C-alpha cells in the first residue's frame, strides 16, 4: 500500500543521538534556546495534528499556560519539586481540562473553532490576572527542579539535564504522534479536513475523531508548557496564557509546516534564533522582522520550513543515481 518507506522514526532517533552529544558541547545560551525551542515544539506538534484536519486553534496558550502554572503552583504549594512529577501533573491536568472542553469544541469548525479556543484561553488569562494568590500579572518564579531525586548543584548542569529529558520526551512524543498519524484513526486526520461527510459515510464519527485529536493536542500543550516553565524558572500570564502566546504557537506552526513530525522542532528553533537576532539588531522594530518572516513564509513557502527541507532533500535524492554512477566507476 505504501511504497515509499517511512524513515521518520529512524531519522528522529538519529537526530536525538546527535543532539544529545551536540547539546553537551554548545555554549549555554544555545542550551537555553534549545530548551525554549523544543518546549514550544512539543506544543506545536499538537497543533500540527489539528492543522492537518484544517483546524487552527488561537487558544492553545490555555493548555500551554495551564501546564506551566501547574508546574509552578505544584512546586510552590506542595513542596514537590521533581521534574518528572511536575511534568506529569502538568500534562495530566491539561489533558483532563482538554477532555471536558473538547465536548464543546468538537462541534465547531473553521473560524468558530479558532475563536472558541481563544475565548476559553482568555477566561484563564482573566482569572490569573485578577487573582493575587496566583501571582497576578507578575506571575512567580520556580526553583530548580530535581530529577528523580537527583539535584544538580550547578544550575547550568541542571539546565543540561532538563534539556536531555526534554529531548528524550520530545523524541517519544514525536514517534508517538507519527505512529498515531499512520494508524487508521490518524489517517482520518486529512480525510476529515478534506470531506467530513464522506468520513461519516465510511462509518467513523468525525466529532469523535476530532475530540481525540483535540485531547492529544492539549496533552502535548500541557507537557510543553510544563517544560517551558522549568526552562524559564518563571511563569506569568502575559507571555504564557495571553492570546499573543497562542498567536506565537500558530506562527511557529505555519513557519514549521505540516509536512512532518520533525518540522516543529526545526521551525521552533529557527523561530527562537530569528527572534533573538531580530531583538539584538533592531530593538525598536524587532516585531517587523518577525512579522516580515511570516509573510515571506506564507507567500513563498506554503509548506513552511519543512517544505524547504524536503524540497532540497528530494532534489538531492533525484540527482543521486546519476551522480553515483561516475563516482562508482572512478
Amino acid at each position, binding site marked *: 500500500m505504501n511504497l515509499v518507506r517511512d524513515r521518520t522514526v529512524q531519522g528522529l532517533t538519529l537526530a536525538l543521538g546527535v543532539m544529545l552529544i551536540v547539546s553537551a558541547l554548545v*555554549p549555554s545560551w544555545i542550551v537555553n534556546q534549545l530548551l525554549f525551542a523544543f518546549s514550544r515544539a512539543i506544543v506545536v506538534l499538537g497543533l500540527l495534528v489539528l492543522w492537518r484536519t484544517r483546524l487552527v486553534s488561537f487558544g492553545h496558550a490555555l493548555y500551554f499556560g495551564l501546564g506551566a502554572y501547574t508546574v509552578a503552583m505544584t512546586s510552590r504549594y506542595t513542596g514537590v519539586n521533581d521534574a518528572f512529577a511536575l511534568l506529569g501533573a502538568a500534562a495530566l491536568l491539561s489533558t483532563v481540562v482538554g477532555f471536558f472542553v473538547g465536548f464543546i469544541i468538537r462541534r465547531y469548525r473553521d473560524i468558530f473553532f479558532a475563536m472558541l479556543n481563544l475565548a476559553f484561553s482568555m477566561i484563564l488569562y482573566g482569572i490569573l490576572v485578577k487573582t493575587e494568590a496566583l501571582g497576578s500579572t507578575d506571575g512567580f518564579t520556580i526553583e530548580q527542579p530535581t530529577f528523580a531525586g537527583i539535584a544538580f548543584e550547578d544550575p547550568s548542569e541542571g539546565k543540561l539535564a532538563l534539556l536531555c529529558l526534554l529531548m528524550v520526551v520530545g523524541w517519544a512524543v514525536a514517534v508517538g504522534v507519527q505512529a498515531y498519524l499512520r494508524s487508521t484513526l490518524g489517517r482520518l486526520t486529512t480525510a476529515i479536513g478534506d470531506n467530513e461527510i464522506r468520513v461519516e459515510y465510511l462509518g467513523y464519527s468525525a466529532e469523535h475523531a476530532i475530540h481525540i485529536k483535540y485531547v492529544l493536542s492539549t496533552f502535548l500543550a500541557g507537557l510543553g508548557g510544563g517544560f517551558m516553565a522549568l526552562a524559564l524558572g518563571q511563569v506569568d500570564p502575559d*507571555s504564557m496564557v495571553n492570546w499573543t502566546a497562542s498567536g506565537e504557537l500558530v506562527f511557529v506552526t505555519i513557519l514549521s509546516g505540516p509536512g512532518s513530525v520533525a518540522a516543529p522542532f526545526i521551525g521552533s528553533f529557527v523561530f527562537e534564533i530569528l527572534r533573538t537576532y531580530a531583538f539584538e539588531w533592531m530593538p525598536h522594530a524587532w*516585531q517587523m522582522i518577525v512579522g516580515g518572516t511570516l509573510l515571506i513564509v506564507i507567500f513563498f513557502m506554503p509548506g513552511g520550513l519543512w517544505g524547504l527541507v524536503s524540497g532540497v532533500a528530494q532534489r538531492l535524492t533525484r540527482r543521486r543515481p546519476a551522480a553515483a554512477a561516475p563516482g562508482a566507476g572512478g
Partner: protein
Amino acid sequence: MRQFRKAAIAAVVAAALTPAGVAVAQDKPVKMSVVSFLSGPAAGPFGVPARNGAEVVILAINAGKLPAPHNTKGLAGRPIEVEYIDESGGNTKQVAEYRNMVEKRGVDVALGYVSSGTCEALTPVAEELKKLTVYAVCGTPRIFEESKPQYVFRTMSHATSDNVAAAYYVREYFPKIKGYTGINQNYAWGQDSWRDFDAAMKQLTKAKASTKLQWPKLFQGQYSTEISALLLDKADLIHSSFYDGDLESFIFQGQTRGLFKKKQVVFTVGETSVYRLNKRMPEGVVLGARGPYGVIVLNRPSALNKWFIAAYKDRFGSYPPGPAYQYAQAVLATKIAYDAAAKKAGAFPSQDQVIAQLKGAEFESFSTHVKMALGDGHQAITENGYGITKWDAKAGEVKLEKVKFYPAECVNPPAGVKSVDWINGGMKGAKCG
C-alpha cells in the same frame, strides 16, 4: 562542489553563532545593556525618555564631560559600549533575552527595567549567571524583601515610599478629607500601590476608605463607567497609580466630565505625563514622580541637576521627565561604583570589587541624595515628593505648587522590615524630622 557548498554553509552558520570577535583585553570597553520599553503602550511616556536619560549620561561619561567629581572618562577609565534593548514581549522573552545578553554577547552590566514582574523574574537568573544587574525603576518591594540577591541592585526607592509619601501629603495639605477611593489598574502594580496607600492612610488619617474601588484592567483605555462611579462615590479624594497611555486617556475623559474639579485626585506617577500633556494637564491635581525626579525637582539648583536638564534639553528638546532621571541615576551609580573600586584596587576592578563598592553606597545623584540602605545595601532609599499642578500662562508650562519632600527615612521602612508589616505596625522608626 556540493561538499564545498556544505562546508561553506556550515562555516557561515558557525560564524554567526560565535560571539563577535574577542577584543584585546586591555582596551576592552565595559559592555552595558540598557533595557526599557521601546515598543508598546509604555514606550512613549516611560521607556523612551528612560533610554534617553541613560544615553545623555553615557555619552557624557565616555567624553569625560559629567560635572565634577565625575568628570573622569569612562567607567574606571574604560569606555562604555552600550546596547539598547526592548523590554516588551513579557517576562518569558525578557528572561531569554537576559541570558542572551550575558551568555552570548558577554554584557558586563545589565541596567534598566521598568516592569516589576520582569525584575522579579530576572533576579534569580541574574544570581544564577552571577552578573551585576542594576534595576533602574521597577516598583515592587518584594525583590529585596523576599530574598537576598548578591548581584542585583536597585538605585531608586520601591513603590511603598510613593504611597506612604502620598498619604503624608494628603494629611498635610488636605486635612479635611473624610473619605478616599482609588482607581488602579487591576494587576500587580495597581494592587500593590492601593494596598500601601490604603494602609498608610489608615495609620495617618481618620479618613475612611470607600467600599467601591475601581479596578479597570490594564490598557483598558475607556473609563466612562469608572468615572461615573467615582463621581457618585461620597469619597472626596481619589488615589490612582495609573501611568502610560491609561493615565492620559483617564485624564482626557475625566476632564470633560469635571472629575478633577469635583474631586481631589492624587496621581502617584502622574509626573510622566506633565511635559507631554502640558496645557491639557488639569489644574489642582496632586502629582508624584515616584521620588524626587522630573518636574518636581526642575528648580533644584545643584550643579548635577542643572547639567542634566541642560544636556537632556539640548539633545531631545524637552525637560527630562522622571524616568529619564531614574535611568540616569542608575548609570551614575554604576560609574561611581566602578571608579571607587578602581581607586581602591589600583587597577581595573573585578565585578566583585565593583559590587563591594555599590553595596551600601551613598552618593549625590542628579536630583537627590541616594542611600543604598535596604536589602543588605542593595536597595536604595531616597526622599519622596509631591506637588499640585498649576498652569503658568506666562511661561506656557505646567508648574508645581506646594512642593513638599519627605525624608528617605520617613517614607521608607528601616532595613530588615517588610514594607507591608512596617506600615501596618504603625511605621515604627520613621524619622520625619
